[in-house]
């Protein structure tokens, strides 16, 4: 029985063990290796992707549970690597080793979708489920703030354009 799902706007059909965690389906069967393995037990957040727009830990999610779902991974977050979160991450030079950052970015982008102007506490709480072994937490928190500012600027710009 094959399972259908949409990944980064592309329709996919997978004929593998339905218990396969989404993480390994993405990495081994769809060649999308931007999503990382850190713990395998939903503790670190390295494997965070969006399932129907919600930040979700893909390491414990069997693909049978995401049949017909809409998946977004770090590779599909933006077309040109210019999502405000990605821009802010580069701007503030967040990554050290970089391994946790795809998960951090997917979590941050999802947080900002829900709360475009998060408070400091909302940022800290929203991001503290993702482990960064290199300790880039300060910059992660600053970058979420910057991303929210960049996004609101972008929005005002496009509204201005439309009304002009």
């Amino acid at each position, binding site marked *: 029985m094959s399972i259908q799902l949409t990944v980064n706007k592309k329709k996919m059909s997978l004929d*593998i*063990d339905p*218990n*396969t*965690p989404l993480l*390994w*389906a993405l*990495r*081994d*069967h769809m*060649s*999308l*290796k*931007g*999503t*990382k*393995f*850190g*713990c*395998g*037990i939903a*503790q*670190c957040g*390295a494997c965070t992707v969006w399932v129907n727009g919600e930040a979700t830990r893909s390491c414990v999610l069997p693909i049978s549970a995401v049949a017909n779902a809409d998946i977004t*991974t*770090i*590779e599909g*977050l933006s077309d040109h*690597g210019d999502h405000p*979160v*990605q821009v802010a*991450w*580069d*701007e503030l*030079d*967040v*990554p*050290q*080793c*970089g*391994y*946790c*950052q*795809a998960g951090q*970015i997917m979590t941050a982008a999802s947080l900002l979708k829900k709360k475009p102007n998060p408070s400091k506490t909302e940022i*800290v*709480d929203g*991001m*503290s*489920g*993702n*482990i*960064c*072994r*290199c*300790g*880039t*937490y*300060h*910059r992660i928190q600053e970058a979420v703030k910057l991303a929210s500012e960049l996004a609101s600027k972008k929005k005002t710009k496009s509204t201005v354009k439309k009304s002009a």
Partner: protein
Amino acid sequence: MKSTRRSFIQKAALFSGAFCLGFDWFQANGKEVSMVQTTMDSGRFNAFLAIDPSGKIILYSPNPEIGQGIKTAFPVVVAEELDVDWKDVEVRQANLDTQNFERQLTGGSGALKHSWERLRKAGATARKMFVQAAAQTWNVDASTCKTSKGFVLGPKGQKASYGSLVAIASKLPVPTEVTYKNRKDYQIIGKRTKGVDNKNVVTGKSVFGLDIDKPGMLIAQIIRPPFGATLKSFDAADALKMPGIIDVVSFKNKVAIVGKSTWEVMKARGTVSCKYNPGDLESDSTHQKWFDEGMKTDKATVQRKDGDFAAALARSAKVVEATYECPFISHSPMEPMNFFADVRADGTVLLAGPTQVPQSAQKAVASLLKIDEKKVEVELSKMGGGFGRRLNNDFALDAAELSSIIKKPVKVMWTREDDMGGGIYRPAARYHFKAGLDASGNMIAFYLRGVGINAGNATRQDNFPVGAIENVLVESVNQVSAVSTGPWRAPITNFLGYAEQAFLDEVAEAGGKDPVQMRLDWLARAKSNPVGKITYEPDRFIEVIKQAAEKSNWKKKLGVHQGFSVYFSHLSYVAQVADARIVDGKAKITHVTAVTDCGEVVNLSGAENQIKGAIIDGMGHAMFAKLRFNEGVASPTNFNGYRLIKGNEIPTINAYFVDNGIEPTGLGEPALPPTGGSIANALYAATKKRLYKQPFEV
């Protein structure tokens, strides 16, 4: 070597018509820097600077990047002396290539110190050649020309890009004498430069070890025996029937499950059962017993002796004693261990993956397979952290041995449980300190015994305040264990720094002295009249201490309990003041002030990252991390039990750097050792409870 050769020819072809300069990135003696024009397949140099006619500047970086920022910092130095715009520079990772590169490794925070001179020289040499090429073209004296952002500027307003001068410059002889920029003219050094890999990281394009994929590659996981046990038998009958499973084989007491995909291997692994011959299995109680014995033995190795400690202690007015205990901990880089190997029928081997020491991987695999090193090629991947774990090539050896048995290309991946349970830990240790104070509270006698388990010398006998104290005795005892250990970020000092700095806080209190002033007094002594040899520079110590006291408002903040520490390691000096507050009835570290003297700061952004990261790392492991052993098996083995510090548990950190222009020293490690001490001392100030064991929170 075939493909190495090919890849170099490809690179060379890419640069046909380019200006190429080869130099030694890692040459041991910076005084004898040599440069040569090269076609990039010359055999002597480990780094290449290439400028093509379009003006694009490419640097091949030979060293592994583990998150310490070297891949950005090194090129910054070259670009500065070359005098180009940073945005025109592209950095590329080179693979291990012992024919073309001399030495490629990462570890010990020593790289920048060793390379500073030759990086500058590489840039300055190329710059001089472009100036000469322009001067020749314009028929003017080279001394009348200047450079700016990749252009040579002539005396009469002439202007030529480096790119346009490539053809002429590449035919000039390589100058041996060059002058360097004055540091006040620096455009890139000392500024904030973003990581060269950022764009790939934020789009998920970086290829880490686990992301390596090769044609025909199989996936394997390995079941390892408890430490000290040997494999008696295993039953893989069920696993072998499962879909996607190719083979289950055993070597060196390990059992490897080989299959087509990660999940199939994981699932099959769960059905394999192993039986072991127990042997001498160690538990926490074994280690405690070894500590007790090591503390009692009269066979300790004397590491340092100044004056007569016993006599001075006997005449002391007051004695302070304390024992500190350092648990085994795991490195837990975010990317678990993994490695790819393809041992081929034609006798060649391809290795690929994350290692801090690719050349020793090559050597170790060659000797394991009894083949010539030249037959082993190593490709480097990006690394999801290392912290010392990837200095040990056990993962590469496993992959190579397995590939040689199954005769197929294979990537061995470690689960988090394998990574945390499978060894190479920070050595455990127990430290006992004694201090004798005279009637006015001055320390006249200082004693330390360090008993380590697989730690070698668990002390650092020349550490301050040694050199300032009249009577000193430092001894070590090493107990040998089946539990595998290795360097962990800031080896030994990552814990010893805490123990020393926490103990000195007790000494200050017992002597009725201010912890800051006490250290300044000692340093004045070490400077004017050192006891025995000293390995640190008292003036640099004094400066970071003074600045930290000033910037932290030492003991002047209301409602804040402060703890002080200062440490010299990896040739850099870091002073810290931690602030603790009582929040909801509990003492909490809310802020850390850190002042670092690492000489010239090459990349301010990267430097800040290293300081803050090391403080968070030091604090997290001091607060939470501990592995237990029961009959040769470590626990916990994943992040549900083994707690890493999270984003809502960090203090704010102010990181300052001493601006002295001294040649740069290491930064990946030095801010970690003082951290446990500053926070333990702040927590003591807040709670009046001394902390003698890590983790602080159990």
